[in-house]
């Protein structure tokens, strides 16, 4: 079959010229890429490929152009002489390109390794620079942290000493109170029996004085027993806000609260927690009564409830005389009181401290002389009673 030779001729010649131009363009582009990123092994790989392709394109295209020209001008014998050399260079060139190509996977692995190492180096450098620039700051932070830890440890030791002291006094008080309670009961009983039959007003007055003081002694003994019997709290789910509300409503009826303003700031997001409501009421009652005494029955009591971390915080603030610095560390000690003799047993705050500790909470105090004191109670979000109830 006969075909026109011209399409073959033009495609061969122009194709060859284009091959040379494009392979040069590729090589130049790849060299430019390498210039921008000289350490990139993948770009170097592309440069090698382009070099191989340029060699291949030039040898092949030159061969083709020369061949077409020689055939057109009738020099087939010359072409036959050149042909083996042209073909050999051509074969060599594309085998070279193929050999480079086949190494792509290894080149890629090296590339990834280099990138990985470079990233590690950059990270290490950044870290070093950061450490260098922030050394003083880091040392300061660490020192502060250590100081904080040391102060926390000291605080913990203080609490432990307090707990041991309370425990020892508790045991002692328990024994003494128990021994005194029975004779006091007998004295009170006989006193009341005598009062019932006595007609002489002078004797009645004397007996009433005895009865009053015996009752006072019994109250002290009862406080001692309450203090020593740190029984396990009977916890149920209660709202702290409603307990405070109940206590404040109760104390307001007391005559000594006539000139005292009680201000309450209740947070609405306070959850119900498991507490022994009677004991917690006793704590609030003790603190409010103490505030009352500190203000000489005239001033403001501010009660605040908030959520803080995993705790409910209850602040009871008064505008009273405040606590002297030397007394701050002793106020939770049993029998420590600044009230006049006969006005207080010095057990209220100790008992309160014990109750709060038995609830897994904490009680703290801050005070300024002539300005007032703040007692902060922390009670944990405890829902153990619900779980226990569900298990039972």
């Amino acid at each position, binding site marked *: *079959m*006969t*075909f*026109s*030779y*011209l*399409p*073959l001729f033009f*495609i*061969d010649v*122009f*194709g*060859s010229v*284009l*091959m040379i131009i*494009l*392979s040069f*363009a*590729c090589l130049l*582009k*790849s060299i*430019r*890429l390498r210039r*921008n*990123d000289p350490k990139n092994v993948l*770009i170097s790989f*592309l440069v090698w490929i*382009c070099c191989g*392709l340029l060699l291949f*394109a030039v040898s092949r295209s030159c061969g083709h152009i020369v061949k077409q020209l020689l*055939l057109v001008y009738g020099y087939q014998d010359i072409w036959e002489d050149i042909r*083996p050399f042209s*073909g*050999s260079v*051509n*074969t060599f060139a*594309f*085998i070279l*390109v*193929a*050999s480079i*190509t*086949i190494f*792509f*996977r290894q080149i*890629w692995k090296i590339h990834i390794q280099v990138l990985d190492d470079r990233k590690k180096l950059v990270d290490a450098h950044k870290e070093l620079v950061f450490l260098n620039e922030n050394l003083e700051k880091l040392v300061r932070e660490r020192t502060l942290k250590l100081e904080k830890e040391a102060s926390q440890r000291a605080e913990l030791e203080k609490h432990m000493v307090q707990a041991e002291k309370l425990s020892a006094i508790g045991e002692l008080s328990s024994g003494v109170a128990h021994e005194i309670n029975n004779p006091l009961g007998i004295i009170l009983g006989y006193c009341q029996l005598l009062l019932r039959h006595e007609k002489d007003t002078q004797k009645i007055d004397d007996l009433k004085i005895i009865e009053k003081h015996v009752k006072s002694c019994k109250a002290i003994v009862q406080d001692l027993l309450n203090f020593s019997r740190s029984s396990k709290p009977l916890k149920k789910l209660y709202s702290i806000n409603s307990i405070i509300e109940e206590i404040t409503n109760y104390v307001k009826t007391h005559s000594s609260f006539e000139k005292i303003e009680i201000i309450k700031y209740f947070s609405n997001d306070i959850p119900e927690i498991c507490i022994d409501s009677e004991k917690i009421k006793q704590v609030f009652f003790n603190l409010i009564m103490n505030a009352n005494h500190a203000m000489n029955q005239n001033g403001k009591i501010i009660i605040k409830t908030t959520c803080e971390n995993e705790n409910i915080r209850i602040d009871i603030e008064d505008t009273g005389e405040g606590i002297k610095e030397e007394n701050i560390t002793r106020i939770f000690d049993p029998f420590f009181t600044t009230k006049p003799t006969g006005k207080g047993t010095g057990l209220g705050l100790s008992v309160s401290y014990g109750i709060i500790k038995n609830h897994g909470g904490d009680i703290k105090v801050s005070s300024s002389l002539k300005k007032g004191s703040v007692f902060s109670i922390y009670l944990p979000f405890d829902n153990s009673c619900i779980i226990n109830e569900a298990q039972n």
Partner: protein
Amino acid sequence: MKKTASVFITALIIILFPDTSYSIQAHGGSEGIVVHQLGHIFFLFSLLALGYWLKSKWALKGKSKLYLRLSCLFLVLWNFDVIIMHFLDEQSGLINVSRNAFDICIRSAANSHILEYLYYFGKMDHILCVPALFFLYKGLKSIETEKGD
């Protein structure tokens, strides 16, 4: 001393009385075309492998991957084409070509016009290898843009 003398005498005999050596194999005949065809097959498979690795490993997001893979595809097709052409031209004896000034006469031994057309169009292999280099250039250009981004 005796050893040195014997080595020297042997070397002298080899130099003075040379003869035909059969230790090196000759590479004449059709070996050239076989090497050339094997080279094309090697090139073809290396490009197939490169195309596959580019698909799974090339990290740059953009058109560079597509262009480089297209370049591989066209080079694979070109290799395929030239392997067939070399086979028809120089190995099979199926095609007989004669040419005058502006015409080319292609005759198939099996008298198959399909084979004659296939040979005629197969000879225009630049239709495959020029786009391959064009896509390689486009791929390199895209890498430059993507790296710039």
